């Protein structure tokens, strides 16, 4: 049995699973939950193109605010990317047109088992699931261990504050006017990271 979770799964992933068997005459490699590693071995958050803003602590605080218009991280708006295993942020939807985060809404985690009770959808996750955890579905299951996240938070904090400075500076260089308005947000974000 091959599990291809999602509500619904990405059409290209579904086709990919079928053609994997037909063309290569083999079953795709599966993880501990029976999901093809090819599509379900990464959290949406791992390769998310907005990940750098997460690492830098630069978040959308309310709908259509300045941060939303710059495409910052949607974590605080309830994004389930950090606890959802799926290919959305790489494969994207509808022949690569977009995926929820790219269109400004957080991931609701529809490929995780019982996702409908993992809400409310707009309440942000109780704790940071961790910076740079390289766990797979085999070892960590569907819910990322909060303890693990706390354990490495010290290391992550340092790394990410450095990253945030670097990213902020890059943003500032590209648009010096916008940098002025972005800077006052930073002390508040630092508290959130800690």
């Amino acid at each position, binding site marked *: 049995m091959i599990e291809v979770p999602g509500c619904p799964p990405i059409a290209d992933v579904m086709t990919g699973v079928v053609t994997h068997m037909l063309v290569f005459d083999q079953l795709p490699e599966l993880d501990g939950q029976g999901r093809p590693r090819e599509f379900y071995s990464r959290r949406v958050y791992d390769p998310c193109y907005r990940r750098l803003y997460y690492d830098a602590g630069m978040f959308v605080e*309310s709908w*259509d605010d300045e941060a939303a218009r*710059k*495409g910052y991280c949607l974590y605080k708006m309830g994004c389930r990317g950090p606890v959802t295993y799926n290919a959305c942020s790489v494969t994207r939807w509808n022949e690569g047109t977009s*995926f929820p*985060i790219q*269109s400004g809404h957080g991931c609701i985690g529809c490929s995780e088992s019982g996702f409908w009770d993992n809400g*409310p959808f*707009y309440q942000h996750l109780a704790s940071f699931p961790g910076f740079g955890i390289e766990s797979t579905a085999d070892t960590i299951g569907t819910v990322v261990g909060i303890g693990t996240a706390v354990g490495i938070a010290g290391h992550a904090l340092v790394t990410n504050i450095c990253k945030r400075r670097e990213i902020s500076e890059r943003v500032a260089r590209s648009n010096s006017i916008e940098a002025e308005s972005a800077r006052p947000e930073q002390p508040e974000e630092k508290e959130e990271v800690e």
Partner: protein
Amino acid sequence: MARVVVDSITRIEGHLRIEAVVEGSEITEAYSSGTMVRGFEKILKGRDPRDAWAFTERACGVCTTVQALASVRAVEDALGITIPANAELIRNLMFCTQMVQDHAVHFYHLHALDWVDVVSALSADPAETSRVAQSISSWPRSSPGYFRGIQERLKTFVESGQLGIFANGYWGHPAYRLPAEVNLLAVAHYLEALEWQKEIVKIHAIFGGKNPHPNYLVGGAPCSINLHEVNAINTERLNHVGRLIKQAIEFVEQVYIPDLLAIASFYKDWTLIGGGLRNYLVYGDLPTQGYQQPDSFKFPRGVILDRNLEQVLEVDGTDAEEIKEYIAHSWYSYSQGEEAGLHPWQGETEFNYAGPTPPYQYLDVEGKYSWLKTPRWRGHPMEVGPLARMLVAYAVGRTEVQEVVNEVLERLDVPLEALFSTLGRTAARGLETRLAVHWMKEFYDQLLANIKGGNTMTSTRERWEPSTWPSEAEGVGLSEAPRGALAHWIRIRDRKIENYQLVVPSTWNASPRDASGQRSAYEESLIGTPVADREQPLEILRTIHSFDPCIACAVHLHDPRGERVHQVRVH
């Protein structure tokens, strides 16, 4: 007298059973039954109202988005939220995308095979098909070689013994009347439509992240607009939308509408069959001056009784006397008893299955026989859907609607009364697709104009936080799904959903009769329908498919046997 049972009706979404009594060669009585149960009303209790759209949208992947739209509107109505103009335009674009894609898919992939004999296309002369194609449209894919190629593909299908997507047809049935050449044309466009429909839905992906089930948001649209940012709706994204709209206009004008007219011209006797009810209900949609201004809707709101186009009555979703749901023949129970009718704000969802244990021969149609409740407007059964929308718009004097309707009546040389029929319903669907695809261009141009004028706002933050809500609130969200009038009613208490009721279009159309014996739209429309061959009741499919049944949202979720029965039984 024989009873013909079709269970399940295929080429629809969901599980629908029709039992029809045939005397001689005509249907004299009919019963429509939804054979799955829906539980959204139960699922939603106690949840955050802002989450409801994500649940209701998943009632069905076919008319995806409309259940989300009705849901966010219900919550916004309850909380007194007015969304920004750009959000309305984006919602309108998503609405039209849905309608255009859904109607084209219905016409080519669900309904056309009731009129088009796929196997007959094998004997067509491709050169003649080419001549026909070029005489009705300027669509470029029309050479003899192109149609020969399609014929070869079809031949491979048939010779392999596996018709695949064309497997379940009554091929060779005497009621098929198109020349082989027109059948081949329709098969070619069946395949082209399949390709094209996956393009148009990319508009959902651009504004909502994906299709099916794009994202919605209470208070606006989740996407932000920023012309100076790659990470938002920018020029590239807008260009993409513009391109898809242009492509859609070409497809609808050059393929769908010419095909519809060509096929309809061979079946004009179906303008006399399948009319059914004489009452039509439309909530209306596509606001141009905001959702609070129904007069500004592209699809006007209103009720027509007894086919009287001289008078359009007003509809109020909040009036406890107007819309009520009954359960006399439905597998539910009400605390106030069997005869009661409940306005959806007071709606109850208590399952009470009293039907036979499968497998069974017939339903007990004297008692309860469906998982659909029976909605009524001031006690009247109503037809909802494209025909209702076109009739109400026509009757209130919308010239753009009158023009396209009159043009088609003229070209088919049939009177206005021809609309009250199976073919009229199918034509109305094509006509509103034609209107909607041009309206998309209007909404798109307006969005560009707003952005050019400096207005990029897509969401209000007002009353997003539950702490700003009253302790009790109630709202109704009205919309038009491709299949007709759709509404959600919500009651909020202590920031949670206390009660939530969906009354969906296929509930209006496919429901069982009410306590006083009045039939709903499907049942009524089958009375008098001819049946040439009881083993192959193609005529039943024509009329039922003309409504575009979508039973997934009308009843939902669970087949206790975990299996489907695709068969026709004749007794």
